[in-house]
């Protein structure tokens, strides 16, 4: 229910002075930069600039950090489209069709579509958050470790079954990824699979592994290519085509709406949300499309589906932070630190007592979405010039950036070594038709899947019937089975009915 008094107070907070807005443009630009450079993360940008918020009031600090978040979430799609390198784990599905579009010379359109879908996603996400912050927080409270484990397994199965080659190989890849994700010190207090290396005690660094598997392995395959876009006529950068692509995103209203809903609700699941939401939205769109085989080959609907969901999942994770005080990922964890620096505690009491501030944060994000449109349309034409760089120069540049970024993530040479090892693994996976995205999602979520199952085991006292008492878990597990066998079952039923 909308609290009108707080609503007007929120407008007063935002518009009585220009001060809160002064930090938004730099925030979006920082986010765009960190999202667009492979290896730099949104959470890293927010952590680096967090000390600056000490000199801001709480409202200004939140606007600055959410602006970095918004810019970074879209920024991650730029390298995904241009180089098949998802800048963040939430942009993995963007690369599925964005990169093939770029290779066909439709890089301008793809970037424009990504920007359009992202901006609509931010608007829709915060719109849903404004209306449903209460129900979303109630839903999040009902999500326990059993549900989180089920969501992770669902995500892995879905992405494995997306594989363009063998579905079986896709699922094997996802499961192997999960195993890699469990390497290191386990929740049970034992060391596994470290081969005596101290660098693996905390597990395989997931983001450097992702950079290696996606980026470096792809660059190895492109060594003999002259340009990212083979056709010289299609290699031009056109602000007009980017703008047309931006408008084209609006021609997919149902995909945008579905992606936004998936983004908010799945994005609200702590830790898992943004990585899985873009995949779920992509798969839902692919399955409902009259030509599902065109996905993965440069279908614009794939970019829309992924970007709508990943930008909306920002609102979902903000719901969890504001309503429950639980950070869903690195970026919201930094925001929680900003809360603490300003002596504010997120949670039901915060929502109840400072509704005006919550509304102000939501409305500020509406404003940020429009600023992102302007800044995106200004900066994408500069960044899109990547297609004009010969591969001879682009390959070593991106490899070097990946190595620097990986060092930035781990703080020691284990990051660059992880990039090296997983670049070879990724190249071998691609060569032998195993699914790289499935393995990456497995690596990202393996540790969390194990923790969730252990907590469920401890809560239930080892009784598997506990799962039967969790309706949400059962629904997710049924969806998992349906996504695996649904189409075959439908085919079987249709054949029987027709015979």
């Amino acid at each position, binding site marked *: 229910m909308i609290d009108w008094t707080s609503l007007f107070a929120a407008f007063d907070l935002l518009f009585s002075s220009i001060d809160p807005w002064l930090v938004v443009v730099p925030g979006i630009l920082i986010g765009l930069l960190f999202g667009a450079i492979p290896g730099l993360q949104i959470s890293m940008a927010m952590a680096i600039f967090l000390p600056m918020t000490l000199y801001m009031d709480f409202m200004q600090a939140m606007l600055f950090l959410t602006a970095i978040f918004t810019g970074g979430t879209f920024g991650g799609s730029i390298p995904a489209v241009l180089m098949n390198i998802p800048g963040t784990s939430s942009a993995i599905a963007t690369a599925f069709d964005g990169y093939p579009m770029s290779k066909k010379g439709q890089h301008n359109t793809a970037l424009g579509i990504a920007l359009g879908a992202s901006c609509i996603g931010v608007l829709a996400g915060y719109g849903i958050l404004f209306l449903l912050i209460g129900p979303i927080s109630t839903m999040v409270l009902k999500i326990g470790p059993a549900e989180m484990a089920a969501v992770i397994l669902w995500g892995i199965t879905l992405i494995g079954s997306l594989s363009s080659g063998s579905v079986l190989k896709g699922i094997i890849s996802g499961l192997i990824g999960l*195993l890699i994700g469990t390497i290191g010190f386990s929740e049970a207090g034992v060391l*596994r699979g470290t081969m005596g290396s101290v660098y693996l005690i905390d597990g395989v660094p997931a983001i450097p592994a992702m950079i290696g598997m996606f980026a470096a392995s792809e660059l190895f395959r492109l060594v003999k290519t002259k340009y990212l876009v083979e056709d010289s006529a299609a290699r031009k950068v056109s602000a007009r085509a980017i703008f047309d692509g931006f408008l084209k995103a609006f021609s997919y209203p149902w995909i945008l709406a579905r992606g936004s809903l998936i983004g908010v609700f799945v994005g609200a699941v702590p830790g898992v949300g943004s990585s899985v939401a873009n995949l779920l939205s992509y798969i839902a769109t692919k399955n409902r499309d009259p030509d599902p085989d065109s996905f993965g080959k440069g279908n614009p609907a794939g970019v829309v589906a992924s970007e709508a969901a990943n930008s909306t999942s920002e609102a979902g994770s903000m719901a969890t932070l504001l309503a429950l005080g639980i950070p869903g990922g690195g970026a919201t964890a930094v925001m929680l630190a900003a809360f603490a620096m300003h002596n504010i505690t997120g949670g039901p009491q915060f929502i109840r007592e400072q509704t005006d501030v919550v509304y102000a944060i939501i409305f500020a994000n509406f404003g940020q979405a429009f600023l992102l449109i302007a800044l995106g349309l200004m900066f994408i034409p500069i960044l899109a010039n990547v297609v004009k760089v010969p591969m*001879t120069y682009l390959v*070593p*540049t991106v490899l*070097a*950036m990946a190595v*620097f970024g990986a060092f930035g993530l781990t703080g020691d*040479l284990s990051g660059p070594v992880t990039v090296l090892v997983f670049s070879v693994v990724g190249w071998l996976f691609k060569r032998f038709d195993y699914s790289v995205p499935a393995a990456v999602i497995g690596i990202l979520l393996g540790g969390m899947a194990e923790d969730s199952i*252990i907590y469920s085991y401890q809560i239930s006292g080892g009784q598997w019937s506990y799962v039967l008492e969790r309706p949400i878990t059962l629904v997710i597990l049924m969806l998992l089975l349906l996504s695996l066998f649904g189409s075959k079952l439908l085919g079987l039923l249709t054949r029987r009915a027709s015979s």
Partner: protein
Amino acid sequence: MSSTAEKKNKYRVADLAVLLVLASLVVLYGIDAYRASSDVLNLILVLPIIVMVLVLCLVQFVIELRDDRAEAPPRESVADVAPVIGLFAVYVLTLQWLGFDIGTMLFVAAFLWLQGERRWHWLIGYSISLSFGLALFFSTMLPYPMPMLILQTAY
């Protein structure tokens, strides 16, 4: 035997070998995890997944054995990729001694030369500007020191 059939057979052997390697690695990980602790909390996820992977590998093995594709799948030449992987490996593994500044400069220059760039002014100019530009940017942005040979940090 025709060259296509020979290639197809070679690829099939490679595919089966990859499956065997994956299954072996998974089994080795399982043994290591079991040796570390046979407690249910340690094996609660690892063991079921290992069993699933092994079953799926077995099914895939049978599928690949029975596979009778008319053509071998297109794959890029290993000879094209191997030198690049080798160069990248040398770059990463020598960073500790060469530092990010000089290591990156040598890697970029060697890569350009390997790919046929013979214009010396481009080769030297680009490798120096890229490596020092990246090194300066990251050493300024990151909150911890980076290994460098020329640029001074407290590493």
